[in-house]
C-alpha cells in the first residue's frame, strides 16, 4: 500500500485518498464560445504519462484537495503542493 503526503495531515495510507483530476487542466470559459474539440479535450483527453506526473487528489478524512507529484512507473512519491498559496 502506497503512502501519500497530505499537506494538512502528513503521510497517510493510500486508501484514505481519492484521485480527482489531472493537474493543470484549465476549464474553458463557457460564457464564451468553446469549440467541440476544445471541450472534448477538456473532458476526455488525459496526458497519462509514463513517469513523473502531477495530479489533483483529495484526502478524504480532512477533505483537503491538493496536488500530488508522483512517478507512475516507479510508484515513487515526489512531493505534494497545497492548492492554497497563502498557508504558511
Amino acid at each position, binding site marked *: *500500500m502506497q503512502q501519500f503526503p497530505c499537506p494538512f495531515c502528513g503521510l497517510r495510507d493510500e486508501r484514505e485518498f481519492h484521485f480527482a*483530476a489531472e493537474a493543470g487542466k484549465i476549464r474553458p*470559459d*463557457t460564457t464564451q464560445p468553446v469549440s467541440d474539440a476544445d471541450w472534448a479535450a477538456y473532458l476526455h483527453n488525459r496526458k497519462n504519462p509514463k513517469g513523473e506526473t502531477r495530479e*489533483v487528489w483529495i484526502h*478524504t478524512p480532512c477533505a*483537503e*484537495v491538493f496536488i500530488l507529484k508522483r512517478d507512475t512507473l516507479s510508484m515513487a512519491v515526489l512531493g505534494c503542493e497545497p*492548492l492554497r498559496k497563502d498557508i504558511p
Partner: protein
Amino acid sequence: MTGFRTPQGGLIDRSKPLEFTFDGRSYSGFQGDTLASALLANGVRIMGRSFKYHRPRGVWGAWFDDPNAIFDVTLNGRTLPNCAATTTALIDGMQARAVNAFPTAKHDLKGVLDRFHALMPAGFYYKTFIWPNWHLFEGMIRKMAGLGRLDGELIAGYQSAQHHDRCDLLVVGGGGAGLAAARHAAEAGQNVLLIEDHPALGGGLFRRALPVEGQSPADWIAAQQAAILAAGGRILTGTTAFGVFDHNMVGLAQDHGFAKAPSLWRIRARRILMTTGALERPVTFANNDRPGVMGLDGALEYLARYGVAAGRDIAVLSNNTFATAAQPLLEQAGCKVTLLDATRGPAKAIGKTLRAVDHNGQRIACDTLLVSGGRTPVVHLWRHAGGKLDWNNTISAFVPGHAPDGMAAAGAANGTYDLDDALSEARAVALNHAAPPARKPVPMPLLQPDTNSNTRQWIDLQHDVTLKDIKLAAQENYVSVEHLKRYTTLGMAPDQGKTANMAGLAAMAQLQGQSIPETGTTTFRPPFVPVPLELYHGARRGQLFNPLKRLPLENRHRAAGAALGEYGGWLRPAWYSDIDAEVRMARNHVGLLDATPLGKIEVMGPDAAKFLDFVYYNTIATLKPGHIRYGFMLTEGGIVFDDGVVARMDPNRFVISCSSSHVAGVTALLESWRQDGNDPDRVFIHDTTANWATLTITGPQAKPVMQALDLGVDLAGFAHMTWQTGHFHDTPLRVARVSFTGDTSFEITLPSAQAEPFWDTALQLVQAENGGPIGIEAVSHMRAEKGFIIIGKDTDGETMPHDLGFSIPRRKKRAAFVGDRSLHSETANRPDRRQLVGLRSDTLLPTGAHLVTGKRSIGTVTSSYHSPTLNHPIALALLENGANRHGEAITVWHMDREIPATVTAPCFLDPKGDRLDA
C-alpha cells in the same frame, strides 16, 4: 519402513509423546514434531499422490518447499483442508488424511491413471475436452480436480488480528545471517524487527551442525537472541513475510497454531534486509519422483530438528560440497552413506520401492536417495519489491541484483553460502555499509538434464510435469517461460514451484540452446506461502466493513412495527403495515414520514451564491432568502448527477437538500469545486445531515396537524417552496413547504436529540386526523404517481436535464455552470434522445423491461407500480423521442413476452398541482 527416529538429538521434547492418525492408521510422535517428521519417524514413506497421474509421493523437503505431503487435518471436530504436512505442528489427537487420494495415499484407486500417462501429455485436457463442448465434461473434470475437501463449517472466532507497525530495519529470516544482522543493527541503535517463520530461531545452523564463531549452534543462537532483545530489538517467530508491497510495506502472517487465524502485520520498514536463505534444488533424472528420493537439505533438517533419519542406506547425488559435509552427520545417526557426483553422467532410480540407483555405469543399492542439485536463493520478496536479479555463474543461480529502494540481501539469499562470509556480509549490510568480498565461494556447476533420454524425469512433482512435457511445450512453441508455465502448469501447484521452477528453466534453456538468464524467470507474486483470505480482512466484514447509517428514531419505528430495510446505506422503515393502505391513508388523510436521511449540506460565505450558481444547473443566485428551489447538479459531461432542493437562509447561507443516498458524493463534489477553482476563504461547505432529524407531514389533513402542533409558524401565509423558522417547546426548528408526494407537505427539521418527543407528539396528532406513519415504499409509489424521479433509477448515465423536461437553464442561463457546454453537443441535440415518459398498461410492467420497435430497444421501464390511488398500473420509462410520443401505443418486451402499453406524460395524478394547496 525406512525412516526412523534417532536415539537422541533434535529440538523435539521426547518426554511428551503425541498420538495421531494418518489415512486411518494410528501413529505417535513427539511434541515439536510436524506431521511430516512424525510420519517419517514412523517409517511412512508415501504421504500423498500427485495431482494428475496419482503417482505415489514421499516427502521431498522439510518446510514450505515440500510439494508433496498435503493433508486435510481434523482436530476437535474442526477440519482444515490442504495443510502442508511439513509446516503443520503435530498436536495430540490429530486425524490427517492425504488429499487427492482414495481411500489412502498408499492405495489410491486413481493410481490407475498413471498407466495412461503416455496419452495424457501437457495440454491433454485443453486439447481433448474442447470437442464437441467443454461443458459436457466440465462437471466430471471439476470433481476430479482440486485437492482438499472443505467441511463447510465456519470456524467460530476465526478472525485475524490486524497490526500496523513500523521499524528502521526489518530482518526477514532468523538464520545465521539474520541473527547477526539484527543484533548488529539493534546494538547500533536501530529499531529492529527480526522475523522467522519456524517456531525456533536458527535457520540452517541446526542442519549444518558445526560450531558458529566458536560456539555450539544452540549457544550462539541463544546469545544473539539475548543480545537483540537487550538492545531493544523485537523478534517474531512463527511469522512469515508473505509479500512486499508499495512503499516498503511488508505483509507478515503470524501463526497462532492449528485452526487459529493468523495475525496480519502491516509493517512499514525504513529498510528491509532479506536473509531468507536458499532452497535445495532438485536433480532431474529418470524416475526421480519415487518415494525415497528426497532433498538433501530436507533430510538434514529432519535429522537436526526432529531427530529423524530419512533412511538407513543412503545414497547422496549432488554437485556440491554440502554433501561431503553431510556425510559424517548421517553416519553418526547410524546411516550407511554413499556419495555420488551428479555432474558425472545421468542417474536412474530403481524399484517402485526404491532399492538402488544406477549412476555412471554402476548400480548402488540404497533405500533412500538424497539429492542436491545446487541451491536457489529465496529472492521472492526482492522481486515483489521490483528488484532485479543477476545470474551468478559460479553458483549457477539467480541472485539479487539492482536493489529496490530500502532493501538489501545477505547470506544464502544473496548467494553467499559460506557461513563466515555470510555473517560478515550481514553485519556490514545491517549498517548500510558495502559488504566485504566473499573469501570462500562455494561453486555449484549447472546440472543440465539429459534431454535425449526417453525415461520419465520429473520437473514438478505435485503437478506431474515431466521433461517430456517441457519438450512438448518447446515443440509447440510455448517457449516463453510465462507460456511454458501456463501450458504445462509447471510451478502452479500449492508450492508455486519453489523447487520445480529452476529445474524447468534449466530444461527449457537446454532445449532452446540458450542460457538460463536468456530464458528468464516467471513473475514472483505475493503471497510467498498460502495465507487464508481471512488474514486480509480481519474484523472488517459485515457491519464493520460497511456500517449501516441509523436513524435517531429507529427505536420509535421498531415500536411502531416497522419493517426496516436498507435504502441508500440507511436503515429505514420500508412499511409499517401495508404499502397500499399507507398510500391511501396519506392521500385521503395524512401521513408521517421519517425523511431524516435527506441531505442537509450548508454552503456559506460571501461567494456562496455565486458558487451554487456554478455547481447547479438552475440559477440559484436569484433565489430569495426564505425561498426554496428545486434543481439539478450535473457532471461536466452534462449528465444529471443529483437532484434536490436548495433553501436560502440568508444572503450568504444556503442549505442543500440532496438525495438521501448521495450526500457523501455531493459533499465531495462541492469540496472539490470549492478548493479547485474557487477562493476557499469565501465559501465554506459543511455537511450537517447527521445533526438534524427531518419529519414530513403530508396529505390533505397536513395543515390541521400543523395547526395542532403549534410550532409558531404563519400557516396562512406559508406558500409552497418557502420555509420558516419555528419551535417545538424550546427547540428551534425549520419548517419547509416542499412536496415529494404531490400533496400539501411540511418538512420539519430539528436537532436529532429532540426527534423522539417531537415524533411522539406529531404521531398522536396525525393519528387524530385518521393518519399514521408511512414507510419509504409508500412514498416511492406516491412520487411515481406524480412522476417525480429518483436519480439513478429513473435516469441513467446518459440522461441530461432536458430529457426530463427541464430545459430552461439550458436555453437561457447566462452564467457558467458545471456541464453547460456538454448540453449543446451533437449528442445532446440528437432528436432520438431518451426522454422521461409515463406508461399506461393493463398489467404491471416489469422494471427494466425494454420498449421495442421490432427487435430494437428504444427505451426501458425505470419504475413500475400498481397505483393504490388510481387503482391501475403505472410506470415511468426512458424512451427515444418520448416527449413527442405521448398517446402512442408501444410494445414492452420482457423475457420473450410482449405487453402492450400506451405512452403518456410522466404524471398520473393531479397534473395541475391542485392538491399542493388543497
